[in-house]
């Protein structure tokens, strides 16, 4: 029980963060026309690619001697990059089409 309290205390700032971000997320999407749902989903998809930051962080703190972990870490960075780059480029391609006219 005490451990739970300590955990919460240590991460209280994070909990605030989570709660506020949830509301921001809902607010931001709230009144979007159906036209933009697919690009928006794709854009959100690219943004969660921020997980790559974690992958790079993990790599920077690895011992160079553990080959298995090195391979897994490199793979993580590679997949994260695919998510980020592919995600943003695909979204841009979709949105490019809305711009032409006006």
């Amino acid at each position: 029980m005490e451990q739970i309290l300590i955990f919460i205390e240590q991460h209280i700032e994070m909990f605030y963060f989570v709660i506020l971000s949830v509301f921001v997320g809902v607010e931001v999407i709230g009144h979007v026309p159906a036209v933009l749902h697919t690009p928006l989903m794709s854009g959100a998809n690219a943004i969660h690619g921020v997980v790559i930051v974690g992958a790079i962080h993990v790599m920077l703190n690895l011992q160079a001697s553990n080959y298995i972990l090195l391979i897994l870490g490199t793979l993580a960075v590679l997949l994260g990059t695919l998510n980020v780059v592919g995600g943003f480029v695909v979204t841009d391609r979709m949105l490019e089409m809305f711009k032409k006219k006006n």
Partner: protein
Amino acid sequence: MNALNEICYLIASLTFIVGLRMMGNPKTARKGNLVAAGGMFLAILGTILFHQGPVKPIIYILIGIALVVGTVIGWYTAKKVAMTKMPELVSLFNGMGGACAALISLVEYPNLSGHSFGLIPVLAGLIIGSVSFSGSIIAFLKLNGTMNKAIRLPAYNVLNTAMMMIILVLGILAVAIPNFNSTPLVYGLLLLSLVYGIMFVIPIGGADMPVVISLLNSFTGLAAAFGGFLYDNKAMLTGGILVGSAGTLLTVIMCKAMNRSLSSVIFGAFGAKAEGVSGSASGGVVKDIQVSDLAVLMNYSKKVIIVPGYGLAVAQAQHVIHEIELLLESRGVEVKYAIHPVAGRMPGHMNVLLAESNVDYAKLSEMEEINPEFSSTDVVLVVGANDVVNPAAKTDPSSPIYGMPILDVENATHIVVNKRSMNAGYAGIDNELFFNTKTSMLFGDAKSVLTALVNELKSL
């Protein structure tokens, strides 16, 4: 963590929020995407440049290789893929993000074995990331057409729930009893989660895939957020939670557009049970129409509404349809497009496809807006759409699409439906509309038939 690094993350978080906000408006959407991309670049750069502590050169080299290879492949695929394949691609990239989160947890676990609560983000990232990965791959295969049928094991709901419970219990035990968690357990959890992801998506029919992808998208967001928890990283936390909550809301909005609840998508039967049931019931006479007659009919109409569906996109006929629109407009015919919220394979997908062929944004009307107009319309041309104009959604309570709002095309004076054959639509059900006395069928591949129509129109 130093100040400069933190500032990078602060700016990145801000760009994610602002970028997503801007993406909600057609005028600023593209810029919004670039803003978010810029923030992401900064976050990645900051992580590498401002890292403190010794790092072996080999690690920098490996990171560099992964970044370059990932960028090249990601860029190339995203640029090359056809617009019709967009939903598959989003699903695939989403799976990559999930796998990335799961791998981070695998690599990080040895540093935290023996911890109790500190293990929560690691295990959560592992489980959610793996489910998102394997689920997205299945969704990709389904949209791709590689895996067409909804596969249902007997009592799959019970099986899936049981599997989820086992994963949860193992996870909780690993956190609560420090000696319980071990490397084999972590790999066991990985395997179970991967299998669960497959089992989760496999029974769901193809028509519901967009909803599933959106849901898995928010899962990956959640996995990224747990990574933020793990490293006390605000950019990961904001980005992840933002996508988690926005993605969930988007999922709910999509469900609403199809008039289905999320639980019926996940647990319900759709598309699989209906085949053959209503086949004979509606069996009537189908009338067909020649291209030349249609050209005359359209040419002397006052108002034409085009209902595009996925079939139009598959046939790559969006440019031809635009040409028809321009020709008719030049003859004084009013032309509009009626876009069902789930036309194509995803909400908004059809808009993207038509925009690609330069169709004016203002001509695309959403369902609520256009439905009252059908009664004053001379000709409705349905191209490659089926379920979204199926009156069974209104009249037949036993139909799997019953309750889904549809386009009221049957109110128009003439209905012309272009289809390749009399095969059932994506949901696998018959369409009474084809047997309506006002309906004429225009059989053939959308592109070749419409091209012929253009030529006929020109010669009039």
